[in-house]
């Protein structure tokens, strides 16, 4: 049975879609079967970042409403044969998603894939709650600034109350992915430091993705950053994060810093 991961944040524009694509491609490069699912019905973007926007025929809403079968809607990546995309509908809105429909699709996907990575829409309404509802694990994407941190805090509260796992009395595994981190700005005090964010959110750190032009460049050519330029700093950070997701114990380092010194500091995980 595959593992369902929701990539969520509350706030928009922090890097959910970028992270979904990058983590999906990184896990697929390990040889796992991966599907990335766009839950942002009406404002879809994952197809662009995956470079599949011209190949969308059927989408998640079609599958939920029974107009198409799941294999018809899945788009295989051109570069990695074990990476798939389930796009969202652009012409519908979030009300087209039903709890039963999403549950059925998730159940089917779990049979065929090792990882189901759900790209949540921003906000805390229907789209976001349905995206997180069936997850086994959550990746909370946060920028090192106060409004993003507070929104993430709100989302963590919802993950602990509004998901199936929470309703069954189980604990939802949550991981913090700190994106757009700039060492120099954090040191000048223009940005929150890693420890500040961890202190407020108190969930384990999955990785720190540096602010980089490589991310923008990759989405402009329609490729996950882990495929476009695997040697770049953000790609390396996403690869490390994907290894931690898969269960490897790997100390977290701040990209752009000298390894070793800070590895010591951030090797520990927050409570």
């Amino acid at each position, binding site marked *: 049975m595959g593992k369902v991961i929701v990539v969520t944040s509350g706030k928009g524009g922090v890097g959910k879609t970028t992270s979904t694509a990058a983590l999906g491609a990184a896990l697929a490069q390990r040889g796992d079967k991966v599907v990335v699912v766009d839950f942002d019905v009406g404002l879809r973007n994952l197809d662009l970042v995956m470079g599949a926007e011209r190949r969308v025929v059927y989408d998640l809403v079609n599958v939920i409403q029974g107009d198409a079968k799941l294999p018809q809607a899945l788009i295989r990546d051109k570069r990695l044969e074990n990476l798939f995309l389930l796009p969202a509908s652009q012409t519908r809105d979030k009300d087209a998603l039903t709890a039963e429909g999403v549950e059925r699709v998730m159940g089917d996907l779990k049979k065929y894939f090792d990882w189901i990575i759900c790209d949540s829409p921003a906000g805390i309404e229907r789209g976001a709650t349905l995206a997180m509802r069936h997850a086994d694990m959550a990746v909370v994407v946060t920028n090192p600034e106060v409004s993003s941190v507070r929104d993430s*805090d709100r989302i963590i509260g919802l993950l602990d109350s509004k998901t199936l796992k929470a309703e069954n009395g189980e604990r939802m595994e949550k991981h913090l992915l700190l994106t757009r981190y700039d060492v120099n700005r954090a040191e000048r005090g223009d940005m929150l430091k890693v420890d500040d964010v961890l202190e*407020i959110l108190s969930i384990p750190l999955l990785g720190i993705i540096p602010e980089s032009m490589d991310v923008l460049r990759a989405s402009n050519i329609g490729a996950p950053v882990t495929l476009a330029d695997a040697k770049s700093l953000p790609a390396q950070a996403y690869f490390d994060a994907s290894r931690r997701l898969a269960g490897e114990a790997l100390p977290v380092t701040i990209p752009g810093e000298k390894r070793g010194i800070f590895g010591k500091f951030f090797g520990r995980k927050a409570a």
Partner: protein
Amino acid sequence: MTKVLTDARSIRIKGRSFLAVVLSPDMPLDHWLARLDDLAARSAGFFLDRPVVLDVSDLQIDKVVLKELLEQLAERNVRIMGVEGARPSMLGPGMPPAMKGGKAASDFEVPEKPVVEPEAEATEVEASEAEVGDARSNLPVVAEVRPVTQSLVISEPVRSGQSVMFPEGDVTIVGSVSSGAEVIAGGSVHIYGALRGRVMAGSLGNASARIFCRKLEAELVAIDGIYKMAEDMDPELRGQAVQLWLENDVIMAETLN
């Protein structure tokens, strides 16, 4: 013709608890009513505007007698909002609804004797005490329930958007209270972590409630309805372990060291 629902909103049904006076009559009823008249004479208007519940669980009466009792009470301006402990056969249309699941609260204070002149008080201590004892034995029997101090312990952070409400007593949080979260307690609030949200202690009118936290970065603190915003607080206290209490309707604060 079919009705068209233009409003998609559903009807909101909420629960709310109120404090009611419970009267437990005993047999014979005319004697009990006489004692009630006596009480009403000493404290005029005691039952006015107060919701009253009639507890008949210890009474062996039928519907006719109950109806009569309700009429007698109505004549005395005691309006019964519900009947507790009645068998279904005892209640009918036009009578108050059955109530159950009531929780005991602190007893109502009823003046036990007419107010005496201040100068007479000193000399009449013994006499008045005897009278009080007498009056007490004549009062309706109310089960004495000692209010139990309750406490709520939360061992994880209170996240933004979450609200902890506990009017029954103290709240202890082993973790932080995030910005945008709130904790409302009838008693004191103890936070073993950073307080970044809002805390209201003594919310039901308890001026001796206090707030304790390991790191004060609160948006708002309130004790017994007196509140203080972040910008009114001494900047020296920010980030410190602090306790807050109320003194003459002013919130005081000091570091815990």
